[in-house]
């Protein structure tokens, strides 16, 4: 870890000012000299590993008063970016109306981490690629653009099979983001010129030729809230992992259905643990629309979800696994008692 300056943001304006003022033009967000600190469970970790070296930290926790509300109003949901994972996971109304959200959070990390970590920090968490996290490896395009990718032919069991490029195959590791993208959530962004809303699906960027650019956020912008319209009681989050808790997904599926008597009116499917960004399987969803659900259909949908998948030495198993997870999540959602 390197020395850094620490500043507590007293209000949103001061926070975005402090973050934006320090930023040089054209620096990717993750390399900006000032970084916001929420629960710190990703940021401090990466600073200790010397992967992130911000000169300054802007602690946004004082904004929690205004930015941590959990609100169900009308038929929608609004979640403050500083709400703790644990609080949202245990919220009775969310469990009832948005099981996919509650479970994506409950099945993530550990109780201790969920108590510290915020929703905003959670969606912004960075990949767990071992080579990215070990600075003794020069070759990581995400950390050192243009240096190559150590994972491509290295130990890549945890890596992605969807959304990969020949520059980077790092998995987006989070769970909650899959629920958000499945539910067509919006993200509210507070910047120096006020707040704006955009589809959550536009927040993350696939690696392409610039794996160091992970989101469309600019230095000086903060996520202040997430919102979802409609209720999604028929929704599940299914997560396959090596151990029963405190472990990232090898493959997960966030599924939300509008269905009656086995006929699907509308379906939303997102995939976790297998893709470089929160991943929406739109072509697969389309196969379900208006259809009578059966196991054969589930299989076709699962195949479609992974049609573009590209496996490597240690992670090819994720393709077959991911299909089974999607099919099972769909079955569970269809048969759910609501």
């Amino acid at each position: 870890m390197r020395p850094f300056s620490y500043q507590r943001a007293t209000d949103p304006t001061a926070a975005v000012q402090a973050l934006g003022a320090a930023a040089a033009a054209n620096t990717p967000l993750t390399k900006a000299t000032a970084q916001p600190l929420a629960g710190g469970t990703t940021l401090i970790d990466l600073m200790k590993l010397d992967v992130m070296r911000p000169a300054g930290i802007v602690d946004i926790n004082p904004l929690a008063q205004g930015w941590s509300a959990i609100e169900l109003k009308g038929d929608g949901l609004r979640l403050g970016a500083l709400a703790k994972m644990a609080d949202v996971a245990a919220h009775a109304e969310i469990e009832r109306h948005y099981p996919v959200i509650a479970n994506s959070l409950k099945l993530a990390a550990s109780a201790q981490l969920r108590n510290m970590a915020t929703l905003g920090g959670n969606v912004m968490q960075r990949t767990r690629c071992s080579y990215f996290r070990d600075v003794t490896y020069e070759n990581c395009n995400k950390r050192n653009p243009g240096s190559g990718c150590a994972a491509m032919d290295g130990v890549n069991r945890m890596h992605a099979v969807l959304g990969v490029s020949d520059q980077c195959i790092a998995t987006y590791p989070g769970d909650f983001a899959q629920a958000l993208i499945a539910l067509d959530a919006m993200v509210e962004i507070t910047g120096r010129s006020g707040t704006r809303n955009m589809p959550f699906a536009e927040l993350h960027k696939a690696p392409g030729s610039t794996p160091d650019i992970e989101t469309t956020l600019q230095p000086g912008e903060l996520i202040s809230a997430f919102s979802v319209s409609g209720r999604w009681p028929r929704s599940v989050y299914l997560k396959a992992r090596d151990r029963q808790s405190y472990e990232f997904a090898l493959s997960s599926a966030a599924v939300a259905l509008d269905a009656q008597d086995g006929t699907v009116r509308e379906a939303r499917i997102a995939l976790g643990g297998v893709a470089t960004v929160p991943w929406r399987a739109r072509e697969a969803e389309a196969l379900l629309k208006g259809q009578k659900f059966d196991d054969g259909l589930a299989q076709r949908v699962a195949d479609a979800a992974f049609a573009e998948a590209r496996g490597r030495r240690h992670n090819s198993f994720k393709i077959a696994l991911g299909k089974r997870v999607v099919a099972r999540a769909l079955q569970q959602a269809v048969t759910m008692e609501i």
Partner: protein
Amino acid sequence: MTAAAPEPKENMGQPVSRYDAVVKVTGRATYASDMPLDNPAYAFLVTSAIAKGRIDRFGLDDARGVRGVIEIVTYENAPKLKDSKLFSDGGYAGTTIQPLKSAEISHDGEIIAVVVAESYEAAREAANRVKVSYTATAPSATFDSPGTTAAAAKGQNAQFKEDAKVGDFAKAFDAAEVKLTAAYDTPTQHHNPMELFTTSCAWMGDNLVIYEGSQYVYGLKNGVAEQLGIDADKVRVVNPYVGGGFGSRGSMTPRTAIIAAIARRLNRPIKLVPTRDQGFTITTYRAETRHEIKLGASRDGKLVALRHEGAEISSRADAYCVGGTKTTTRLYACANVDSLVSIVRADRNTPGFMRSPPEVPYLFALESAMDELAVKLNIDPVELRRINDTTNEPIGGKPYTSRALMACFDEAAKAFGWAQRSPQPRSMSDGDWLIGHGCAATCYPTQMAPSAARVRLQRDGRTRVEIAGHEIGTGAYTVIAQTAAERLGVPLEKVAVFMGDSDLPPAPVAGGSNSTASTCSAVMMVCDQIRQRLFKAVMPGQSLTDRAKETVGLGQTPATQAAKSDRPLDLEKAFDALGVGVVEEYGEWKPEGAPLDSFRAMHSGHPRLVGGHQMKDQIAYAFGAEFVEVRVNRFTHEIRCPRLVGAFAAGRIVNPRTARSQLMGGLIWGMSSALLEATEIDERNARYVNDNLADYLLPVNADVSGVEVIMLSEQDDRINPAGVKGLGELANVGTNAAICNAIHHATGQRIRKLPVRLENIEV
């Protein structure tokens, strides 16, 4: 009595709570790096980013510019240290690779620089700023990597003396009615004790104090003294508590002498706290192994031929090996046995002891093969063990001192409900989960080593026991206190135990599960010396022979017998007759068959472990049987193990509470080893990849739902005066095979490579 404090059976002590329970749960137990130092400097290690090659240049300007940096030590300016021999060659070290000696690099993560600064933070920051240019050569990572060399263990490793064989294996296998040949693999594993591999070194004039979590303070003291070229009496190692060892702290690692020498140069105490990932390369680990088992049997299940061939990875520099064939060739009756162990050298750090080093990988192979054979023969796996049970080991024909293998199978089978299992694979399920039941035998050699102790008794019964034993979490303080209290007939609360300090009388390495047997035998003997003195005072005219034994239970009789015949000694009367305030005795105990130089070796930090198959006319092992339930998800193929049941017989159980914890921990470690633990190696560069506790998978609470430990009552008077068989490393031996056997039962699929992960299941 509760589950945690089981009712003592015949030949068991009381399940008293831990001697150190309160200090531990209140956080007041001081571990090595908690020890206060006077004006310390802080060290941080820089370790190599390549596994093979040389350092061309260091770029140190940036690092030196960090405020608070005192010195950066590299091979160019490092203090000179003497080499240390490997423990198996009569030395103290777990590796002969001595870092900071030259520009050469022989494994990933080798120590290449030590940054010393006024604060930990400054040292760490400066270490991050050290630039190193290397010339790297392609390393050989593991089995199948080009450039490795393989050769028989015999002749390279002084402690591996023979490839056990008897009869004519080839002929018998050829003629066998039923044959099985199968290959098994076990992965690289790292101990990962909670306490990091810290060391603090402080000089007072010519005397050095080392605070370091060690499983062998006498070994470390003598080893560091040798490397520094100073008198061992000037070195003291202190660690009243050790935050887990699992073998990783049994032999000396290079870090200690380096830090001590730098502290001497700077004339300041130095504290080193390495990171978790550095712990993967600056100490030892369990190397990956490969096995081929051949079993020949008659149709009714009798083994007629058995061959076990094992291969193990070691470093280029050292021929470390575990050679578990010594156990697998002796477990079952079989007239024709053959074995071969070989060592494959790669560009790796030297492996070392880890949780039942030989038995875990080798019994995984044998006990999986036994299950495969049972399936082939259509015989219940428990019955197959019964058919091949034996009172004498087949290689030398020596009798087991006691052997309760089948009694353990029967008790555990009953508790588990084995009879309700439907033997057909894939025949049991519950919703999304396929259910499998499996079992395996477990065993561990009974080992003892010379040990000394000093005991001081006062008129009011207050007792002080001093012994350089180690509390690595096993309950050593507790069982030593119990032994002294029982032997002297004083209340347990009056006994104080001092351990973890090389200024105390020597005890052996806390390894090979020998501690309770060795230290309690020594403490019993010294307590008896005290009783003798007191007895002489009360009955001056009496001869010490018959009358003494009858009155105060003298001599090396097993604890239970002594306890039964004892009459309480009237302490006050005895002290008054003696006319002193304190009676203090020191004594040195050695097990039967210990070599002639035992006591000298004990003081110079060489444990002379005896026992297991190396005894003269007998063979001593503790036994157990383990039954597990696994669940395999039909959709995700996730594997969980909700139920582990083990029954064990290990001689006298000094404390059923601490013994149960040890056995329970063993079962959990066993499950961990079967399903989770593996260090991944990047074969291109021979580097460890998942070197942290998030990626190196260990079970979390949610993975451990049902663990049942059954302790059988067993009395064995032929092993040691305490009647104790080590059990710390007994339980994790059988679990790997039991789980794979259960996976076969659940899925019909036989998996011969550990750990078993969801991608290995093809249901």
